[in-house]
């Protein structure tokens, strides 16, 4: 079966983001960009399905600027067979991205679509579920275990109280949580080979998707800073402070 895996280009998770002085967003100039960590887990899962002989082809797709080719090349180096960049410089909302992915899925007809559960920039946690609604496919979100068996996929999901397992009819959508797998690193020969793998470019227009949004960001601010308090010297002082100063015990 064919597996489609979506990846997003985001600010690297090790970067400490700063809010711009004019409060229009966060500083993105000269900041290291990487593949969203949850998407890395999605790519890894797709490759493992291929290694197990379940997936026959892994197609990576990204919606983003020209530079997002880097993240697709990473996916190719990790083992994806080919890549599609839906190129746009606009900052798209989750619904617009889901509509684009729906159009790509219509062309590609995958049996399984893997996405990260959320991107670490916008923290929306929406795209996979929205794609589920648009395609009419079942969704297994926040997955910590994925097992394909014939025409169904069994997904163990991380939920607030513990774990839930659902069985989904294929084609289906799975969004990844942290404990699904540990992504591998790309090896140098594979990085070289990835440069020759096919990377096709499309546009939202050509896919017939309008990317407008009803949401407008009015401003972006730094959160209220919590200042460091005091150091206490021992347990007795700590208990005293909690009882008499903070009055929380």
């Amino acid at each position, binding site marked *: 079966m064919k597996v489609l895996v979506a990846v997003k280009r985001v600010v690297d998770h090790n970067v400490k983001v700063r809010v711009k002085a004019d409060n229009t967003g966060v500083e993105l100039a000269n900041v290291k960009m990487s593949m969203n960590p949850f998407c890395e887990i999605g790519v890894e899962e797709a490759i493992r399905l291929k290694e197990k002989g379940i997936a026959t082809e892994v197609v990576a797709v990204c919606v983003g600027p020209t530079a997002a080719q880097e993240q697709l090349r990473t996916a190719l180096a990790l083992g994806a067979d080919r890549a599609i960049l839906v190129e746009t410089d606009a900052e798209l909302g989750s619904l617009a991205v889901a509509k684009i992915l729906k159009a790509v899925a219509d062309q590609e007809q995958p049996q399984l679509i893997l996405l990260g559960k959320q991107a670490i920039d916008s923290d929306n946690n929406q*795209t996979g579920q929205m794609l*589920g609604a648009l395609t009419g496919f079942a969704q297994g979100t926040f997955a910590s275990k994925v097992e394909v068996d014939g025409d169904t996929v069994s997904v163990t999901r991380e939920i607030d*109280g*513990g774990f839930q397992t659902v069985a989904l009819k294929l084609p289906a959508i799975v969004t990844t949580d942290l404990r699904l797998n540990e992504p591998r690193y790309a090896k140098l020969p594979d990085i070289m080979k990835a440069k020759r793998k096919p990377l096709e470019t499309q546009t939202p227009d050509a896919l017939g998707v309008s990317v407008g949004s*009803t949401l407008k*960001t009015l401003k*972006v*601010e730094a959160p209220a800073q919590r200042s460091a308090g005091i150091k*206490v010297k021992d347990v007795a002082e700590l208990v005293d402070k909690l009882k008499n100063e903070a009055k929380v015990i």
Partner: protein
Amino acid sequence: MAILVIAEHSNSALGAATLNTVSAAKAIGDDIHILVAGENCAAAGEAAAKVEGVTKVLVADNAAYAHQLPENVALLVAEQAKAYSHVLTPATTTGKNLLPRVAALLDTDQISEIISVESPDTFKRPIYAGNAIATVQSSADIKVITVRGTGFDAAAAEGGSAAIENIAAGVDAGISTFVGEEIAKSDRPDLTAARVVISGGRGMQSGENFDMLYALADKLGGAVGASRAAVDAGFVPNDLQVGQTGKIVAPDLYIAVGVSGAIQHLAGMKDSKVIVAINKDADAPIFQVADYGLVADLFDVIPELDAAL
């Protein structure tokens, strides 16, 4: 137009997060309806009708909704939502799983995890793991929103007397089935609702050592949490994880024991009223957000603290 709150519930009881979401709805408008979709969920419906400020409760009782499968529930919610100006649900794993599917069925954008209501169309929400706060305005006809519980006080669970209306419903989309679940059983308060949370990190060294934290939590009537490092090391199950990708908590007292204070952990607890950090590394980042820091070996401190309380 009225505001629709999709209840988080267990069929027999209303989930605590629903009360915070009702408070968010009150900040938007006065006419608040709650939808309870489940199986044999009359008790949850009755509890919803008692919540202060709620004007009407819709109960959709059907086997198709028994386990909140989003493929089924989203169809129901999208149909009901057309009569409302806003649709809100708690940003729990159930709400996050469901609501974007509803939004896409309505062909509208969703606003995730709001922490404040500025006006009926403008909201604040954290981005970049809480390292920035965005103010977002929506021009959508139906505003579809998930609510972060720690941003709003809980509405009173008693005092209301809303009318209950049973709605005919029940389409099983037939593409997903519930297989099973493993829910951790505990007599302690729920992590996200507890007044006191004691979290252990990698410094705890083993799962057995968490027993010390449980004993302390029981004395304080609190819950036990953990950092991602402690969960990944296999000390405790994942449902204890506090952080950006785990639970977001804001108790009156948060005690971080052997937690270094990675950004993603801070994102889950920095709104706590009082933070105590116990760590033998004086340079641990957790001390930068702690009201009271104690630089010491936790294996000396915790028994001492236990004895002192």
